């Protein structure tokens, strides 16, 4: 039947395929449900039995981005009828939009702190990885293990002295403080990954360059770096995903100014169980990561295991 002994039979393939598809569908259901909830009205969201078919509305998204106040019927009369589509949605509940919510700011903070720390950790990581890869650094293995072991501490444990340190230095609730912290945490990942990528770049190119009269620095810059761009890109994306999703440090070390989205999203629920708004906030926050996952799927394994597994 099959042409090679190791090639699975058609039957095996179909069965395997079916099982995997079933698992994929089951596993994507919670996620799909949350995305759908973002488009339901609050009553539909908490309906029982759970509504699979519903009338979509942007109420969740409107609530996500605005703060509203309830007004008495008289006050509402004075203000007059609602004008825009979002005013109309809010007016259904005798409420009026009183300003933007903090979600936009928090999302932006996630972007700033995420990209800032990613840039820094990839920059420093590339330099360090190059040095570890090419030079005879004393205690190299120990240093590499030390770098890896920094990931073994529970973040809460690390947060205790960092909290005190930041308080002393005035870095509490600042973008700079969080960027430095995330950079330090991501360094372990980026050094290990980039060393793996750089190890794979043949040494011959640099040696040729050196012999041609380039300095070490120039050899690094002109020869190695261009060849490492895919590795750098993969590393960058993994560092970004960590900084993007991080919660423990964010909830303990940030407040009004530098708070990122993960500590904020659970509080969107407000007093009255506004699940569509929470779902909307969650969905928007997932979008960048989902895009990256799809773009990045070939490099997934490397990144997640610190380059320990090669393709």
């Amino acid at each position, binding site marked *: 039947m099959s042409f090679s002994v190791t090639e699975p039979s058609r039957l095996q393939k179909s069965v395997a395929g079916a099982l*995997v598809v079933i698992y994929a569908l089951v*596993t994507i259901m919670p996620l799909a449900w949350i995305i759908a909830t973002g488009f339901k009205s609050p009553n539909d969201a908490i309906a029982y039995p759970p509504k699979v078919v519903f009338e979509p509305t942007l109420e969740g998204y409107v609530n996500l981005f605005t703060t509203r106040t309830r007004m008495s019927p008289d006050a509402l009369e004075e203000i007059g009828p609602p004008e825009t589509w979002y005013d109309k949605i809010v007016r259904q509940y005798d409420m009026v939009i009183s300003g933007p919510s903090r979600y936009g700011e928090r999302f932006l903070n996630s972007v700033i702190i995420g990209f800032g720390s990613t840039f820094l950790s990839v920059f420093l990581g590339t*330099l360090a990885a190059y040095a570890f890869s*090419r030079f005879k650094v004393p205690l190299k293995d120990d240093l590499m293990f030390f770098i890896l072991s920094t990931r073994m501490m529970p973040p809460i444990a690390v947060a205790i002295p960092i909290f005190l340190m930041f308080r002393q230095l005035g870095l509490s609730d600042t973008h700079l403080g969080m960027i430095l912290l995330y950079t330090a945490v991501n360094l372990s990942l980026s050094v290990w990954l980039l060393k793996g990528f750089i190890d794979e770049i043949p040494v011959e190119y*640099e040696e040729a360059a050196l012999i041609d009269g380039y300095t070490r*620095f120039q050899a690094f810059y002109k020869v190695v770096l261009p060849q490492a761009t895919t590795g750098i890109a993969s590393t960058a994306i993994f560092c970004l995903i960590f900084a993007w999703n991080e*919660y423990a440090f964010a909830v303990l070390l940030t407040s009004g100014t530098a708070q990122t989205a993960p500590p904020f999203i659970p509080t969107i629920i407000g007093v009255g169980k506004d699940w569509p708004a929470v779902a909307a906030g969650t969905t928007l926050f997932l979008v960048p990561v989902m895009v*990256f996952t799809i773009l990045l799927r070939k490099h997934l394994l490397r990144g997640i295991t610190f380059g320990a597994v090669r393709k």
Partner: protein
Amino acid sequence: MTDETTSRSPAVAPAGFARKYRGLSDRAVAWLFIGPSIFLLLAINIFPLIWTIRLSLTNYRANRTNADVDWVGLRNYERILTDPDIWNSMQATAHFLIWTLVLQVLIGFGLAYLINKKFKGNDLWTTIIVLPMMLSPAVVGNFWTFLYQPQIGLFNYVVAFLSGVDPSSFSMIGDVNLAPWAIVIVDTWMWTPFVMLICLAGLRSIPDSIYEAAECDRASRWRQFWTITVPMTLPFLMLAVLFRGIENFKMFDLVVQLTGGGPGSITELTSINLKREAFEKWRTGYASAYAVILFVTVFGLASIYVKALNKVKER
């Protein structure tokens, strides 16, 4: 130009005076490149660790900046090791750790095995399976509280649909017996793809020639599986277990959002307990001792495990 052989050790620049004429020496470059990273790591990881150890020997409270701080020696450690709450959270963590590892290994390996059959479109489905692990664990914990709600949640409804049980009769996160399983289920949902990816890499690394040789020797599929597939994937599996183990020992955000440590303290993992001591009760000295104990535990266990892993790799 020149015909360098590949047996040259990496990056040894030509010796002697020529080096100095090529800009910064290699040593300078090495230090320049490594320096900032090591500095940052020392500042944010090592210095705080030393500070934590020092704090653990005092009765400092971070919310009482005006109060006196006394040296108490090892008393915090003593109290921690005799505190039943601490042992309770160790138990909760152990239960979580063991069951998530078992489930993720079984399901992850199974999935990898099936995906390795290379059916049509497996790229697409693999990407879909991988999505959950890229999300923020805190946000995942939060939306799973919605899914687990007894009367309006999807989870209860699906279970009711499949088994006929009344959906409002059980509450995954409200029942003392079910809550530990609730957190295991969510973590498994999130991280099985991770184990799957590693196992897949392992399966793909087994050369076809070995299977072909086994076929020639007329070994059955079953036998091939147990004598070739499993042993050769074992190092990868152990690596996955190492990473997941370390992560789940530190687990905080997912569980704190999902159950808050409750009901009672049945799902209060060590990190959650630590957070309560340090940032709600503000017993900083006590919490520091706790943190040191946790770090030593995970470091010790990981070191032993890595030694075992290296042995398996060498086989």
